[in-house]
């Protein structure tokens, strides 16, 4: 039974063909492209409203130069939120539980912000390594600590998303298998477990959306520092 718990995280293949590509492309089908007419239906209106308000909120602290990242951040947000929430359905594969995918998002984007910062204003970017008002003897140690924290950012970004989603899915599997195995013999315990499962599901929906938002928010913060 312990082996089964992690089977859900195996990259899906069918007769040796990797299905991960379909798993990554399929969510796009849920979002209709804008219609050529002026006033769209409810789904399009909601989509437009959501992306518009999200971008407005995320980009408000960033200066005009960083606004070229708007498309990237919006796409990333919609992609992550879709993948996360679709993964909560039964028998689905969540690509964001794969560390490779999350690191593939985190490292290039973080590195892009850092390189942009060092190219445009290297002194300003280096100045971020030393917080204001530190006492002089602490300066060398603090610089080392700050550089380590800078370098750990992509790791943190990727691992945060992976760990949260993997843990959530694992918990759901665990609690549901506990409830299932107890269902016939000890029904009250099973009903408690089902109640726990319900709460957990609600939590997982929230976590799915929040983790995607946090990912994009942190990227926008790194961008704000460096642009």
């Amino acid at each position: 039974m312990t082996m089964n718990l992690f089977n859900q995280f195996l990259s899906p293949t069918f007769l040796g063909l990797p299905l991960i590509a379909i798993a990554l492309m399929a969510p796009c089908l849920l979002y209709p492209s804008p219609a050529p007419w002026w006033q769209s239906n409810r789904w399009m209106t909601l989509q437009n409203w959501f992306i518009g308000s999200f971008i407005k909120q995320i980009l408000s602290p960033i200066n005009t130069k960083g606004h070229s990242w708007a498309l990237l951040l919006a796409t990333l947000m919609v992609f992550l939120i879709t993948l996360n929430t679709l993964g909560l359905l039964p028998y689905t594969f969540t690509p964001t539980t794969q560390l490779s995918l999350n690191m593939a998002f985190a490292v290039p984007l973080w590195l892009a912000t850092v390189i942009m910062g060092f190219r445009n204003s290297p002194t300003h970017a280096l100045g971020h390594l030393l917080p204001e008002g530190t006492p002089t003897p602490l300066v060398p140690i603090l610089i080392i600590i700050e550089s380590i924290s800078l370098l750990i950012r992509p790791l943190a970004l990727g691992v945060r998303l992976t760990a949260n989603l993997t843990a959530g899915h694992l918990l759901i599997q665990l609690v549901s298998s506990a409830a299932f195995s107890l269902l016939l013999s000890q029904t009250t315990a099973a009903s408690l477990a089902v109640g726990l499962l319900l709460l957990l599901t609600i939590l997982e929906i929230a976590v799915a959306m929040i983790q995607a938002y946090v990912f994009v928010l942190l990227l926008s913060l790194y961008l704000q520092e460096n642009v």
Partner: protein
Amino acid sequence: MMSRLVILSANSLKGSGPFGAGLVHASRSLHTSSQSRAPVPPLPETGGKVRHGIFPEEIFQLLYPKTGVTGPYMLGTGLITYLLSKELYVINNETLSAICIFSVIIYGVKKFGPSVAAFADKLNEEKLAKAQEVKDLAMSGLTQAIENEKKEQWRVEGRAMLFDAKRNNVAMLLETNYRERLHMVTNEIKRRLDYQIALQHLNRRLEQEHMINWVEKSVIGSITPQQEKESIAKCIADLKMLAKNTQAKATV
């Protein structure tokens, strides 16, 4: 959504969904008619009808002639029973989590569905209202312009009256001026004529006086000294008599 597409596209190509907009081209794949996008067929107001949230109404209509009202339900029940009994679908822990997630989703949709739909409709209404406002403003601006133009035309009609009044004014001024001059001329002529009359009167008076003087002179010249003595004696006799009469009156 996808099942609807599959079903509908099997029946006719002019289906809904993402293929609908591109089907103008499909109708003239042999280029036999001229390409025209107008008149565009009207869009449906609401989405496709579904029963129980996911099953399109078309399936029920499809099965109705052969199996009646309960047909699709029997089909669904039979399908599920088949899957379960043949263990094509195994009930395991995922089933429980599936039940949980679907109940959460259905609860969410039932509870927040109408409000989200109303919100989306409100956004659309606001967009429409903005455009309508622009149109209404333009229309009211244009009607106002029409009214202003009509008023200007009315004013132009009134200008003729203004010109008439001015013309009358000028005519009156001219008339007055003419009358004044006439009056002046009349006065001048009267003065000249009066002068002539006064001259004539003067002449006549002079002639009269001259004649009177001549008559007096000739009368006084014709008085002889004898006549003078007689008249003086008569005057003295008269005076004496008068004095006597007066004295007599005074004593009485």
